[in-house]
């Protein structure tokens, strides 16, 4: 089989940091090739070099055996390689049609909007996308937006497409639909480079996998010949098994630290009863629209329920008031760390100690020394890779930023802990640290609610509540079978 895309001996430095150190990748025509590695392994840098956004310091990129075009020739690059970036390149204020043909709306002369819409509909139909071209792109769902980006990328005539963590923001059924599309594209002969933190996805959709670690190439091998633990070992540099949850027998007489009675929120969930005792972890599972995230956000006060009450550690904080919930003894990790998790420009120390600032000094004064000491301990506890407590959280990699968010949740030794999707976009090792942190907190006597789309995460739970269309439909004790859980989540279980 001929080689569609190749990078040889590519080195890229940013100041003192070496982002890529003499790495290579070789992607055969028509295959779906996985690129995996921990946060900071150099994946994103390789993407920007393969798409011609950055020039390698050393080494070269070849397409179909020919040298890559000059960096300035954007059109030539776009004819060879298409990319769906992690960060959206859709312009939310323009229509889908205009986004599809951005900067090529017309040849010469004025844009004929009718004609542009027709062309857009044609393109969307060609890829079987049921999206209205007249819609403003900001109104699209994440899934639709991604599909529009794929269609646009391919419309330049490229036969090679890079998908940079496309599944990170999608729920189960949407990922399934994306994979169907990827298979269809592969049948049409499209070559793909697929980047993901989810190794099961790699096994499901890819034929070959390349592993990078600490800016170096570690291995490239056919997926079929590579056992799961060897792949994990290649990524982490050590033979690490998947996370092993601890044995724990919750005390049925322990006090209830977090309780919801008759909780309901219009259009999200209804009649939810939930009680979490000290020393246990309760999982919440369900598909994208099941209401599990809204429920968790109500527990912490980010949302206000229409009916029912939330009790935290024996008291009822004012509904919809996060501050009151925190004061009652709650800690939480929000759904989207970039959005609600941290203030990127502030230091780890400040981010982690926001909820306890009042305990670090008197009369509104925050003692820097105390804050530093506290933050140092949290950094050690959670193994945050940073230059020190003063480093800005925005500079950290995904996994370490998420640890900083976890540190904030744990800063005040909460009695009740609510953790939403803690392992999204986080590498294998950070994932283990984060789950350990939750288990540690529970061993210290907290009660926790863990919401996750990642079924493996839910293994640490003593019981898992499954939600479907806004209702809790089933409770599964520890040791559930994955097939059973998925069946209930999809509404096909008994």
């Amino acid at each position, binding site marked *: 089989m001929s080689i569609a895309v190749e990078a040889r001996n590519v080195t890229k430095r940013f100041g003192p940091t070496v982002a890529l150190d003499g790495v290579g990748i070789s992607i055969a025509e028509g295959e779906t090739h996985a690129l995996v590695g921990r946060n900071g392994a150099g994946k994103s840098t390789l993407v920007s070099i393969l798409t011609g956004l950055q020039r390698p310091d050393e080494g070269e990129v070849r397409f179909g055996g020919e040298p890559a075009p000059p960096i300035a020739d954007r059109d030539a690059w776009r004819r060879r390689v298409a990319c769906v970036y992690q960060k959206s*390149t859709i312009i939310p204020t323009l229509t889908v049609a205009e986004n599809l043909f951005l900067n090529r709306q017309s040849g010469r002369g004025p844009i004929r909007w009718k004609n542009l819409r027709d062309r857009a509909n044609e393109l969307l139909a060609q890829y079987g996308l049921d999206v209205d071209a007249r819609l403003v792109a900001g109104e699209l769902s994440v899934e639709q937006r991604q599909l529009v980006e794929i269609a646009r990328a391919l419309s330049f005539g490229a036969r090679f497409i890079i998908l940079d963590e496309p599944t990170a923001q999608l729920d189960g059924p949407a990922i399934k639909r994306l994979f169907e599309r990827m298979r269809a594209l592969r049948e049409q002969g499209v070559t793909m480079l697929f980047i993901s933190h989810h190794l099961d996805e790699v096994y499901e959709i890819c034929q070959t996998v390349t592993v990078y670690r600490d800016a170096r190439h570690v291995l490239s091998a056919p997926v079929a010949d590579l056992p799961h633990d060897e792949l994990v070992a290649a990524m982490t540099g050590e033979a690490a098994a998947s996370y092993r949850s601890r044995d724990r027998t919750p005390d049925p007489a322990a006090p209830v630290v977090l309780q919801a009675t008759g909780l309901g929120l219009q259009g999200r969930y209804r009649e939810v009863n939930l009680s979490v005792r000290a020393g246990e972890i309760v999982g919440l599972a369900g598909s994208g629209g099941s209401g599990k995230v809204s429920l968790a956000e109500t527990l912490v006060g980010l949302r206000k329920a229409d009916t029912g009450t939330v009790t935290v550690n024996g008291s009822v904080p004012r509904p919809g008031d996060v501050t009151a919930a925190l004061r009652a003894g709650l800690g939480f990790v929000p759904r989207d760390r970039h959005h609600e998790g941290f203030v990127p420009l502030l230091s780890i120390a400040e981010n982690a100690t926001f909820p306890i600032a009042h305990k670090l000094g008197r009369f509104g004064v925050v003692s820097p020394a105390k804050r530093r000491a506290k933050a140092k301990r949290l950094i050690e506890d959670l193994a945050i890779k940073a230059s020190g407590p003063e480093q800005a959280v925005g500079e950290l990699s995904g996994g370490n930023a998420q640890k900083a968010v976890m540190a904030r949740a744990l800063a005040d030794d909460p009695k009740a802990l609510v953790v939403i999707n803690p392992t999204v976009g986080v590498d294998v090792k950070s994932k283990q640290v984060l789950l350990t942190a939750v288990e540690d907190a529970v061993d210290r006597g907290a009660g926790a609610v863990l919401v996750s789309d990642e079924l493996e995460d839910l293994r640490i739970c003593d019981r898992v509540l499954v939600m479907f269309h806004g209702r809790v439909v089933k409770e599964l004790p520890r040791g559930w079978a994955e097939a059973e859980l998925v069946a209930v989540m999809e509404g096909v279980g008994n």
Partner: protein
Amino acid sequence: MTPSTSAVTSAPMLRLARFRDLALLPAIALLVLVGALIDSAFLSADNIINVLQQQTELSLLVLAESIILIAGKFDLSLESTVGLAPALAVGLVIPAASNGLGTELPGWTAIPLCLLIGALVGAFNGLLIVRFKLSAFIVTLGMLIVLRGLQIGFTGGQNLFELPESFLYLGNARWLGLPASIWICGVLFAAGIVVLGYFRHGRSIYAIGGNIDAARAAGIRTDQVVWTVFVLGGLLAALAGLLMTGRLGSVAADQGNGMIFTVFAAAVIGGVSMDGGKGTLFGALCGVLVLGLINNILTLAGVSAQWIQAIYGAIILLALIMARLTSGKAQD
């Protein structure tokens, strides 16, 4: 949201989006009605032409500011350019005895010089913002003060009276029964609406304001476009200054002073987003007309001159609140 449901819900939203442009027309109609009831002179041709002509200078600044805002940037210095560009151009032409600079260039150069100075101011703003990546807000705030200071400095704080004949022409001439400035504004707005609505270069301004990284990835030369937009802004501000000078017959030391608040208000009332990427020039034009009518009605209603500023400002704030409520979305 599944694809099929979004397709269903999209239809009414699309219709709304098409009419958002026309959202201010009822307000304009209402103001005309109120004006007619307050004073019968309101609907006379003289008064209407007067309202329009008074708004021409403001509308040129709104045109400039709207384009800059759509590109996701900011320009506060426009109001100082309105004063400096004509003052400096005139200063280069008239004799030192009339507060000129003593260079005494030929009279016909005054207009080209005025426009050139405006363009240079815009180019300098662009240099600092695009090339040196400074914040547009702070750069143009600095320029606002520097340009005003320059004008006061070299005119000695004096108004310039002895202007070359050519300089007065555009602000006074009537073409086909209407003041030339109205024609100029009409043509420029029409050109702006067409370019921003139907040409690739115009659309790239929206793309840049909406998501500059995506625009760059799509092959748009973002730096070049933003720079052009700033130069255009300076040019339009200089033209506004030229028209104002012609209309008033002199260059006042504080010409243009305080206009920028009204400029922003008109643009935002007209639906131009302060966050970039959103809004139309037609909407902005409607915003200008709304403010112009309010101003005229307040004058006709005999509101005392001491109070007119407070009332005018309050009405602008009210209009912003109304725009926020009717659009249903947070104003950015």
